[in-house]
């Protein structure tokens, strides 16, 4: 007897789907992959925008071709300053690079990158704009205020003395030798040429140096550290007086930024008559005053005294820049 083979079993219903152990990951996570691509592209874009040295050189050549006496050049942003100076710094002397203000200059050039502008630039459109590679050249034509007499540059022509009661103890002019100092935290360089007031107090000298102001900007100025309540005096004789004296003064930033020092007085006299007084307090930074020359003396020649004193002279590393000028335009 044969028996029919059992029919094929009906296909079983598929087993119920096992519950997924993990839910599906959200597609939103794929955005992180997109972000990775964006970051790579950003890197490429950043690299492509790096300003090559050749652009600085080409911009420098343009400035150099148009350069005139009375011009000055600056950079923006400030961090690019070494590049600007490497490119056209030979056109600047220490006096221009550490200028007190723009007054004496007839034209300001700016080499800038990345859309920056120096705060020193006039608040108006430049008179000339040119793009050389990625460096932007801008120039402002200024109305210069000619300097009649720069007291900083003539500091070695001055007579310097410590005023002690009615006595004036002369400081000894020292010429020759080499500047001394240097290194982080050591303050402005001591110039080779200076008036030495007291060898026992090596900081008590008067001479032209470059000091870093509270904004960390360079200032070519006369270091005249106060000895105390009685002043140290710099006397300039036979000075063309013009109409006013413009005086700036500041302290070495490391001594000013602590905001813990006392006041320093700077008094300007013309022919013995006080015409201006700058009281410098910590936080003032590079401070400016203008002192009018008495009417009777305008256009004449006369003697200018600059006295610096401080009730507490400790770390009062005052440095000033002053000049006689005609009336402001």
């Amino acid at each position: 007897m044969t028996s029919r083979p059992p029919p094929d079993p009906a296909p079983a219903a598929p087993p119920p789907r096992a519950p997924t152990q993990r839910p599906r990951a959200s597609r939103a996570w794929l955005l992180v992959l997109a972000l990775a691509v964006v970051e790579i592209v950003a890197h490429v874009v950043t690299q492509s925008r790096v300003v090559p040295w050749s652009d600085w050189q080409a911009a420098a050549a343009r400035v150099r071709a148009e350069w005139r006496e009375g011009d000055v050049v600056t950079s923006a942003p400030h961090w690019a300053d070494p590049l600007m100076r490497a490119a056209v710094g030979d056109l600047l002397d220490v006096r221009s690079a550490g200028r007190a203000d723009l007054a004496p200059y007839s034209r300001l050039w700016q080499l800038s990158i990345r859309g920056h502008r120096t705060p020193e630039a006039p608040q108006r459109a430049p008179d000339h704009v040119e793009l050389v590679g990625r460096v932007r050249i801008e120039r402002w034509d200024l109305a210069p205020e000619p300097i009649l007499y720069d007291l900083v540059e003539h500091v070695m022509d001055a007579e310097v003395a410590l005023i002690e009661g009615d006595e004036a103890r002369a400081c000894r002019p020292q010429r020759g030798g080499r500047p001394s100092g240097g290194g982080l935290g050591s303050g402005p360089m001591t110039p080779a040429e200076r008036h030495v007031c007291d060898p026992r107090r090596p900081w008590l000298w008067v001479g032209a140096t470059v000091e870093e102001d509270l904004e960390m900007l360079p200032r070519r100025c006369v270091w005249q550290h106060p000895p105390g309540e009685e002043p140290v005096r710099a006397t300039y004789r036979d000075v063309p007086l013009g109409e006013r004296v413009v005086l700036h003064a500041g302290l070495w930033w490391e001594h000013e930024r602590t905001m813990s020092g006392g006041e320093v007085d700077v008094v300007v006299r013309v022919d013995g008559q006080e015409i201006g007084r700058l009281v410098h307090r910590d936080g003032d930074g590079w401070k400016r005053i203008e002192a009018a020359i008495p009417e009777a003396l305008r256009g004449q020649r006369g003697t200018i005294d600059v006295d610096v004193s401080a009730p507490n002279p400790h770390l009062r590393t005052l440095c000033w820049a002053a000049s006689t000028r005609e009336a402001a335009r």
Partner: protein
Amino acid sequence: MITGRPLGWRDHLVGLVLAVSYCALLLATSRDLGMARDEGFYVDAAERYAQWFELLAEDRDAAFEQANIDRYWENNHEHPSLPKSLFALSWLAHRTWDLFPEDSMAFRFPGMLMSSLVLWLIWAFGARAYGRAVGAFAAVAWALMPNVFYHSHLDCFDVPIVTMLTLVTYCYWRSLAEPRWAIVAGIAYGLALETKHNAWILPLVLLVHWLFFVMPGELAARRAGKGKVTTLVPWWLIAFAVLGPPIFVGLWPWMWHDTAARFSEYASFHLHHVHYNTAFLGRTYFGPPGPIVFPFVMTLMTMSVVVVILAIAGVALRARALVPPWLVKRLWPHGRVEGDRQCTDVLAFGSMLAPMVVIAMPWTPIFGGTKHFIAGWAFMAIFAGIAFVRVARAAREWAGERVPAIKEATPAVTAALLLAPSAIDTVHSHPYGLSFYGAAAGGVPGAADLGMMRQFWGFTTGSLVPWLNEHVPERGSVWICDTLPSAWRMLQRDGRLRDDIRASWDLAGADYAIVHHEDHFVEVDYQIWMAFGRVDPVYVLTYDGVPIISVYENPRRAR
């Protein structure tokens, strides 16, 4: 009870391969890096220690005399001696067997070795706690952080202490369920103390974890009848207390005499640490309070944005597990993520944040760099690994539906794409690691625009060597600014810098002068103007167009 997922020998082989590969990479790229300032100090110290080790080998009694200990171990005694002893031993080995192509590499090698071991640790921790994919991604992500890559090269303590802190944390974590690990934790803690003072803070972090998370959770779980997982006795803390101090003192000969006074001096140095300058978002800081956001912004700006986003996402994914176990039912009753009884997520999260929080505190001395909180980045990498797994799964599902053929390769491709920005950054950062800023800052020029710190330690002098070799005349002198004399000498010992070029400390008398461009170093520029009577540098070394070092030539020499 085993802590986390068990790892086999193959896993540790992976860790070993990671470490060895990284060490090889560090050795291969070390020649590009001139010595940084602090490295020079530690070379000086290591050479003194090496002399003591030689004395120890020749005359043990003499070596143990206080006069000799003071003579050889006084140098740099504000820092413990373990890394410097390793530098010294490596130097001695090199001197005997000529192991390395450069002297600097001999001093640096122990640092590189310890820096490589942290990859193994991150891999092991990540794999055991969250899975192998997490561990692998985390280890590579850490290795490719540009600041980590730079510091990993050095004969310094900053990455070695990361290794030790990670090791102690790992051993502590293991000890919670396996008390025998407490002994290893205690030994590791002693070695960490002997590596750098950061270790003093670690028990506090671990105590918070144990006291406020592990203990209450364990007690609550036991009351709920869930059995015993972790011990209620802080064996780890006992081991720290019992083993830590003897190892700390035992391995540091300077502490063998006048121990109390010398320890007091050591503690005082760090409790009253000087402030270093740092520039941050346009302001130069000289003293506290530093900006609270400093470590967080620096983290964002100096590493790949993708890794930062992944780390934040990883934390978010594990957020429920960060709630104390005894609070989670009340605060966050429903959710898939469950913390374990060792509160691993909390430990990783705390270890990530603690170093940054310490630096962010307004009373903490200003240090400036990222190196003081990179220990947190190791755990950040682990959280990034957690999120990576989720991205990889999303990519796998997405690809599986569209291109099944590549489905299996998707995780690897995902990892490669996610880590590509880090890799590009790291390659690009070398040898300017400390000057590097990533996409979040707009790159190096963007960071300069933002007024961020440019560099420290004068570490870039090495990059100036080709110019100096080419331009400085025979027996010319260079005023070397922030370069440490021993770092300068090392460039000559290594044969990179011409032997006849002299370092000078007389600015006005030098033939050349250099300035390392940091915000507050601008003072040196002005000094050089006065000394040389000119304002134009003859060469400006740049990184992505941003000045790093200016070189001035003394016009007297040019005549």
